[in-house]
């Protein structure tokens, strides 16, 4: 396929977005808004898959597709180009394919909503921004679309803006991401400064071309940067990592993601589980050649990822809201990915396998997490928008298909052997084990491996608890509900996702396809991944099966510990009071400062300007009484004035 055809991937959803927005103008036409979205995303998905299957790269292992010149100032050029390489094509295929499936699911869920067309327009806009984020060849352009996906996320979280909780959640997501994005921007600017300092040595022109990924990750540039400006490079990478942590909802910036579940459920499935939140992982993968020059940064990523994975899993265990369970599960799994990426801190040669492990888990996670969310959407639909698992149980009688689809997703997430999640999670644990074999940071990585295994156990536990509480047991439903299975249009895309969730890992992982694809054909000696550590596989399989067993036992036996309102369960149920901590340390002081400034503004600045404004009226008051509006008065004054002037003129 002609490389220029790659432009279809972002442009088809963009056109769908514009058409959808136009359809939103009329209620009648708006009912067909899913049409352009389906077509646009369909084109994007097909083109991505074709490129994934047949893409040919130049010897550098990538392909640059010319676009247009965004800006051109003197010598500095700011081109917008697409970079096709195994990494971006893998990611963009996952994004477009899952988006397409969720888009097919959406009409059933959003049916009859007043904002139907608006939903699909923003949905397509999101896919446009996300594909451009993934495909752009330039860090600066990536940043632009990074912000745009953030905007789409904000709009979709606050989709039901009449609900105060939704608009609050949207604002929270936006603000937390703003902190991270601010750091990200600073990191980019520092990197830009460094690149322009060494531009003469690498023979590059100025402008945004300096931030081209191919130039940034060029081995010569990397060496030069690391040698000349190690501290600056470290700071820049740290700031970029903070940007990635914010978008991917890692500790300490994870607080926005669980609240983001206020949006429509398909949005949660797509943006806040499968695609946008993985942008941070993708960014770190992209910057990996530079990141390995700052091992401290990667170590931070590993530790934050590990701790996030553990804490989020603990929180998920005690949530009663099905979507909250899945949200914290997402945070936890993203933590896994960062943990996988962090192992490159142990030794630079681990960078390849770290990226592989993270991308592998990213791809499989997109499938099973989207599936779980859509299944939760079905439950919500049947339960009149109720999602609290205490209110219903035993739904398998009413929704047998949804139950099996949820079970497939849950099994994949829990890492039941031979399913997708098992392979990808094992890959991450295997690279951590491998990193623990290196001398630097060995203790850290042993500890992280243990954390990873504990998290795997907890993952299995909370996933199956959620499954068992929702679908198994005695059937109990709220009184006003008529539970029903969802339509075929909703179930078919879920079935496709389920196939992916069950089989994708097995197809990509153990066969070495993904590894061979990502690492390129020219590195054959360096065989894929961490190799299989069979011992570890057995351990993680046992751990996940044990988690499942405990989960079923606890639900069947009705263990009271999970409902306990004191001690550790309460602590975890309240999310370790992190929101409250932020509230007391950041929000309230911020509000107090704001009120103080507002008081100053009202009373000091305001008094000053009011006093100044009082001067002209004071003088005006002296003169205004003469303006009676009576013609006779004016004539009199005129006559008197004439007399006075004439008198003066004659006496002079």
């Amino acid at each position, binding site marked *: 396929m002609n490389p220029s055809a790659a432009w279809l991937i972002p442009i088809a959803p963009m056109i769908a977005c514009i058409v959808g927005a136009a359809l939103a103008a009329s209620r009648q036409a708006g009912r067909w808004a899913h049409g352009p979205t389906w077509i646009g995303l369909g084109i994007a998905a097909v083109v991505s898959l074709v490129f994934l299957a047949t893409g040919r790269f130049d010897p550098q292992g990538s392909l640059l597709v010319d676009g247009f010149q965004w800006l051109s100032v003197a010598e500095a050029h700011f081109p917008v180009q697409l970079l096709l390489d195994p990494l971006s094509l893998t990611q963009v295929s996952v994004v477009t394919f899952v988006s397409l499936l969720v888009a097919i699911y959406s009409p059933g869920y959003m049916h009859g909503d007043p904002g139907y067309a608006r939903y699909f327009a923003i949905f397509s806009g999101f896919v446009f921004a996300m594909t451009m984020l993934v495909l752009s060849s330039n860090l600066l352009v990536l940043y632009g679309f990074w912000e745009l996906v953030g905007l789409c996320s904000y709009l979709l979280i606050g989709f039901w803006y009449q609900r105060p909780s939704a608009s609050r959640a949207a604002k929270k997501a936006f603000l937390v991401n703003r902190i991270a994005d601010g750091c990200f921007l600073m990191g980019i600017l520092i990197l830009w400064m460094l690149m322009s300092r060494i531009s003469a040595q690498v023979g590059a022109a100025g402008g945004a071309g300096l931030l081209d990924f191919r130039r940034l990750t060029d081995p010569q540039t990397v060496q030069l940067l690391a040698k000349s400006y190690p501290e600056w490079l470290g700071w820049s990478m740290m700031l970029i990592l903070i940007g990635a942590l914010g978008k991917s909802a890692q500790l300490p910036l994870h607080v926005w993601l669980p609240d983001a579940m206020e949006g429509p459920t398909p949005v949660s499935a797509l943006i806040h589980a499968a695609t946008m939140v993985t942008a941070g992982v993708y960014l770190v993968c992209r910057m990996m050649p530079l990141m390995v020059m700052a091992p401290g940064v990667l170590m931070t990523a590993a530790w934050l990822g590990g701790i996030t994975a553990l804490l989020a899993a603990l929180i998920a265990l005690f949530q009663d809201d099905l979507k909250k369970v899945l949200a914290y599960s997402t945070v936890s799994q993203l933590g896994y990915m960062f943990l996988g990426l962090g192992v490159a801190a142990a030794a630079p040669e681990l960078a390849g396998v770290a990226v592989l492990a993270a991308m592998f888990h990213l791809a499989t996670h997109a499938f099973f997490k989207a599936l779980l969310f859509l299944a939760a959407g079905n439950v919500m639909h049947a339960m009149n928008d109720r999602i609290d698992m205490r209110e219903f149980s035993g739904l398998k009688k009413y929704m047998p298909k949804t139950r099996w689809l949820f079970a497939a997703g849950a099994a994949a997430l829990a890492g039941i052997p031979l399913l997708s999640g098992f392979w990808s999670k094992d890959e991450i644990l295997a690279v951590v084990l491998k990193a623990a074999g290196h001398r630097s940071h060995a203790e850290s990585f042993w500890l992280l491996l243990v954390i990873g295994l504990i998290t795997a156990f907890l993952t299995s536990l909370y996933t199956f608890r959620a499954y068992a509480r929702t679908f198994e047991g005695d059937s109990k439903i709220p009184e006003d509900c008529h539970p029903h299975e969802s339509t075929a249009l909703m179930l078919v895309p879920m079935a496709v996702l389920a196939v992916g969730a069950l089989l994708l890992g097995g197809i990509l992982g153990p066969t070495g396809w993904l590894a061979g694809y990502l690492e390129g054909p020219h590195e054959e000696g360096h065989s894929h991944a961490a190799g299989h550590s069979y011992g570890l596989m057995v351990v993680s399989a046992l751990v996940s099966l044990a988690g499942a067993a405990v989960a079923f036992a606890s639900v069947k036996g009705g263990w009271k510990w999970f409902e306990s309102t004191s001690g550790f369960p309460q602590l975890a149920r309240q999310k370790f009071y992190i929101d409250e901590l932020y509230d007391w340390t950041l929000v309230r002081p911020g509000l107090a400062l704001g009120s103080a400034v507002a008081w100053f503004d009202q009373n000091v600045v305001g008094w000053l300007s009011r006093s100044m404004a009082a001067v002209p009226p004071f003088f005006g008051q002296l003169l205004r009484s003469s*303006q*009676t*509006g009576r013609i*006779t008065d004016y004539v009199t004054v005129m*006559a008197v004035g004439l007399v006075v002037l004439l008198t003066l003129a004659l006496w002079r």
Partner: protein
Amino acid sequence: MNQPVLALSAVLFALGLFGLTTRRNVILLFLSMELMLVSVSLNFAAFAFAHQDLGGQVFVLMILTVAACEAALALALVVQLYRMRHSLDVQLWQSLGDPESIRPAPIEDSTWPREPSKENDGPSLAPAGRDPAGYLASESIDSPAAAHRG
């Protein structure tokens, strides 16, 4: 020999000015103005004669022409004003003044000396004087003007 003419002109001008400042009827105001114009014309004619200079007479003709045009316009305006308020009392049009300083004519106030109201008649004269009978000076009147000043 010009003195009597100039005196007559001065008297006419003073009468016109007096009428302009005291009358309230729009037509009478207009006539007062015409009177002043005539007095000025007379002045011009007198001086033209005294200096044997035709320039002054040219001015007289000029002023008469302008006054004629003005009359046409002014009377058309008067008709329009009458249609708006059914009265030619100039105190009814004060909206260009400062809102706090306006003392609007109490239209509905029966104590205000109004023109005699007739059915289907044309305009008639409003009483002369700025504040006839001290109505506006008296605080006891329950009029919009009084309320405004209070």
